[in-house]
């Protein structure tokens, strides 16, 4: 994932009082945390605020990191709980965006996907838009598996579920993602 000092080396520096070393961890994981948070918040402003909150929480709780799991797995557990709390507070509509109307709402939301026309047709952008249309749980598990390089065991630990349950949830999320692609991005897929 990265070059330079390992996560545990940075953590021990921070715990010894070198708080500036923590910026290396923020730099290393900010995109992963931000992408994951965006799955829940559906807009960049909230995602940035929640991500910042996550890094602050992680910093304050750093002494509790035992090193038995990867730092990223521990960090994503904080992401998961913080995002769930955020959704509860905001009382956001977390239903799956199934119909045309909600699709339009999702499409009009500023999720960082509205670049120029050419970019919109790109492979990455199309997948990102399709993932953004999923409900937060599905978006989260797909992001953890494909982008955040977490194994099913680690995903189970992050979400507090058994490995088999994580596997089933991932299968279902992928099936729903495929449905979204079929429904809304058939043309883009053909053009790729």
């Amino acid at each position, binding site marked *: 994932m990265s070059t330079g000092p390992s996560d545990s080396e940075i953590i021990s520096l*921070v*715990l010894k009082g070198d*708080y*500036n070393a*923590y*910026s290396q961890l*923020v*730099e290393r994981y*900010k*995109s*992963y945390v*931000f*992408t994951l948070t*965006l799955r829940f918040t559906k807009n*960049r402003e909230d*995602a*940035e605020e929640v*991500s*910042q909150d996550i*890094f*602050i929480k992680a*910093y*304050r*709780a*750093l*002494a*509790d990191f035992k090193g038995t799991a990867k730092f990223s797995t521990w960090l994503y557990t904080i992401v998961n709980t913080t995002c769930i709390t955020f959704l509860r507070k905001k009382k956001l509509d977390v239903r799956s965006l199934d119909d045309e109307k909600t699709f339009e709402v999702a499409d009009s939301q500023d999720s*960082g996907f509205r670049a120029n026309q050419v970019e919109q047709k790109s*492979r*990455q952008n*199309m*997948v*990102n838009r399709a*993932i953004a249309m999923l409900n937060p749980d599905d978006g989260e598990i*797909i992001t953890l598996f*494909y*982008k955040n390089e977490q194994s*099913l065991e680690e995903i189970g630990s992050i979400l507090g579920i058994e*490995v088999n349950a994580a*596997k*089933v949830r*991932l*299968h279902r999320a*992928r*099936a729903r*993602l*495929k449905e979204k*692609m*079929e429904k809304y991005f*058939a043309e883009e*897929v*053909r053009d*790729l």
Partner: protein
Amino acid sequence: MKQNFFYSPLNEGSFGGNSFDGFDERLWEYIDGSGTPEERSSIEKLLETNRVWKEKYHELLEVHQLMQTSALDEPSLRFTKNVMEEIAKYQIAPATNTYINKRVIWGIGTFFIVLIVGFLIYSFSQVDWTSNSGSTLPINIPKVDFSKIFNNTYVNVFMMINVVLGLMLLDRFLASRNKNIHKEA
């Protein structure tokens, strides 16, 4: 292959004698590289011989590859600076195990154990061990007078909480044992 992306063999009917159940799941497991070697070789055989499986495999593989190529979203350029400015206001909290006194935990645990043991002792003391009721068991359960203990709502609620806590503890114990078994496997 592109025109097959949204093609669903599930609509086609014949599956070459294979069940529809877990069709996608089996292929996803194969694509993820999980599953036993026997399962993988049986799927490989199916992919060689069954057109429907092969087409579905390519369809799912394409989705898999699309997801792998997707990019991460980036926060604003000032993000790290903002975080560092914020954390300058905070201190790292001491590790949880340093401020939770283990003696307190043990004390609470001992209290509950003493309570349950006391309840059992009382129950057994109510049994008339000398009487011969014709039963093979020396204990005649209907003779135990529980009404002296469970005579008000507070005691019942308290006992119910104990039972729930006990079940939660048992669940955690079994889950951790299950996890260890998986790890060893």
